[in-house]
């Protein structure tokens, strides 16, 4: 499956990725100047944190959020392997928020659903990768088993 690779050396913390994430994914207008004035305020799914690192969902192979979700709201798209929130059934118990090892999932400030990055699964290309001016974000094929979190099944200790 394809995931977003982050190169912290190239990231300048310009926040272009989270701004555009807010416009493209968070807003209904899909236009910067109109999105700003939308109520509720659009929520970006990417967070650029202190150390030059935009945090996205890693779509863990063994995903704690899917395991923790009590009613199957947190799902994995079988075709692409991407993890997403099926909003209609979210009961806002915030179990996923609690267990996410990367702190990616957040309660929406306005409605009772969990909000997370789904790597723009319905789009050809994730918007953050598209807009990153320094190419610190690139879309890359991830090897099966080379997981970011979980049991790292292929490695022996």
């Amino acid at each position, binding site marked *: 499956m394809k995931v977003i690779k982050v190169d912290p050396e190239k990231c300048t913390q310009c926040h272009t990725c*989270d*701004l555009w994430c807010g416009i493209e994914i968070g807003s209904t207008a899909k236009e*910067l100047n109109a999105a700003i004035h939308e109520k509720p305020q659009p929520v970006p799914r990417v967070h650029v944190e202190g150390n030059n690192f935009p945090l996205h969902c890693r779509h863990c192979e063994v995903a704690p959020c899917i395991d923790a979700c009590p009613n199957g709201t947190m799902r994995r798209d079988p075709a692409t392997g991407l993890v997403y929130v099926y909003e209609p059934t979210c009961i806002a118990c915030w179990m996923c928020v609690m267990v996410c090892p990367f702190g990616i999932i957040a309660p929406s400030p306005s409605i009772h659903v969990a909000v997370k990055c789904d790597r723009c699964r319905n789009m050809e290309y994730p918007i953050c990768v598209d807009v990153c001016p320094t190419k610190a974000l690139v879309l890359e094929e991830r090897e099966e088993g080379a997981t970011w979190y979980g049991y790292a099944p292929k490695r022996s200790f």
Partner: protein
Amino acid sequence: MDFVQRKTEDSAVDHFLKEAAEKEIPLVWDRYEGSLPQCGFCETGLNCRDCLQGPCISHPFKDQNKVGVCGKDKDILAVHSFVRLVVQGAMGYLDQLTDFAQGVEAKEGSPKRKQEVDKILKDIQKILGNGDTEVIKKFPKALMDEWKATGVYPDGIAGALFKVSQKLDGGVGNIEETLLWAFKGALMGCAAQMLQGRLKAAVFGDTAPTNVEVNLGVLPKDIPVVLLYGHFSPLLKLKIADAAKGKKIKVMGVCTDSFVAPYHFPPVTNYGSQEIPLMTGAVDLIVTGDQCVNPSLAELAKIWKVEVVPTEVLNRGDLGSFAKKIVEKAQEAFKARGEISRDIPNMKESAVMGFSAKDIDVNKVAKAVADGKIKGIAILAGCNNVKFTQDHEIVSIARELLKKDVFCVSEGCASVGLAKFGLLNPKQRDVSCGKGLSTLLSSLGRNIPAVVDLGSCENSGVTDFLLAIAGVGKKPIKEFRMVACFPEANRTKAVARAAWTVAMGIPTYFWPFLPVTGSQKTIEVLSGFCEEKFGARLHVVTQKMEYKEKANLLMKSLERK
């Protein structure tokens, strides 16, 4: 990111776009595409580089990280972004004026009306002092009193511009106060523009409406061509035209004041396509000022072996010999460029340009508005912006307004854009105008086109027209059915112009968005607070809309009065 939009409405420009793509010649549209996505923080005005502790940004979608290092919050950041543009724009007008005035003082030309020139020069001195100039007193007393009460009366560059520029440095001024300073700076620019227009008339004599031809088709094939780009001293233009007189050489203009009596320089194209004349191969020398000139010209000109001569250089020397050198260079270049083919599209449009308030019977216009024969008066200004299909917005909006019986005046590059589409051609007048407007225009004279061009942005044609209207209507400007629209603006000067238009009491629509959209409060202050202080709003419309909706907005604004 891809840039999906038709580039231009002008088929003469379109003619060269394919060639440019094939030869991989980068034009403004390519560079724009290369810069996408543009910085959203800058676009919304939520950024600041006014000190070296920054740069600071404030995220429009997050409440945290709201203030800059020095404590500027979103609202102040947005207001400062506006102030920055206005200051730069007002300085543009002052630069034009002082450059010209210094030339006149140095006796670079022989003025037509000497006494008047001396009087205006003295007036210009006052700008450096307390700003109590004669020109600003031409405004109705009530309006001036309002300006004084609000505190925006332009009292000299020290009190207005220098002070305003320091608002960006710090201080604890609130949004409203800071914004008023911006209007004060803008009005200073207005005074400078009025002085320049008057000085020009006194030095060269009045200009009259003139028949000109516009668009790339005006370029000649078999004689040397000098193109004047952007704004620089009209004295130098006169000297160049003088030096070219009697020789087989043609002097034309792009983004410049086309009229320096007794000469005129046909506008070859307008701002958005200022690189295209080079592609015809029919340009032998380019003379450029700084304002309104794309730096890309220098590199592009090399492809067609054209020399670009900047006028705004240190130690320029005597204007007369500088002009002679330019003409000689053009002649030599024409010989040397013999093998370069000249591809001139056969597209030109005739137009009548260069009206001034005295050439129009404002009495009739004011009466027609009062009697409801026409719906109102619209001021169209601002040159092209790559964010819109070139000329599409302004021409379509103008056509909509004309159909709905709105008397349209235009200035500067906006006029050239409209002229390219025949809206300044008196013969095509009745095609585009509604009945009421048609009757009014034909009563004004045979030679009046659908849209009346009030000269370049180097003259204060529009301001003088407003003063004339206010004079005959005997009521404040803000009570007239008037609206101003900048559909494709791009220069800081246009922002300053929009600001002073609002200060005079005319509701103004500005596209693209001013960089204040990041702060809801600033947008509200620009409308509500300005309405309260000046009787007019500076509208910042954040929704994307088609030209028809824009025209409807303008119509609604006219009907409100």
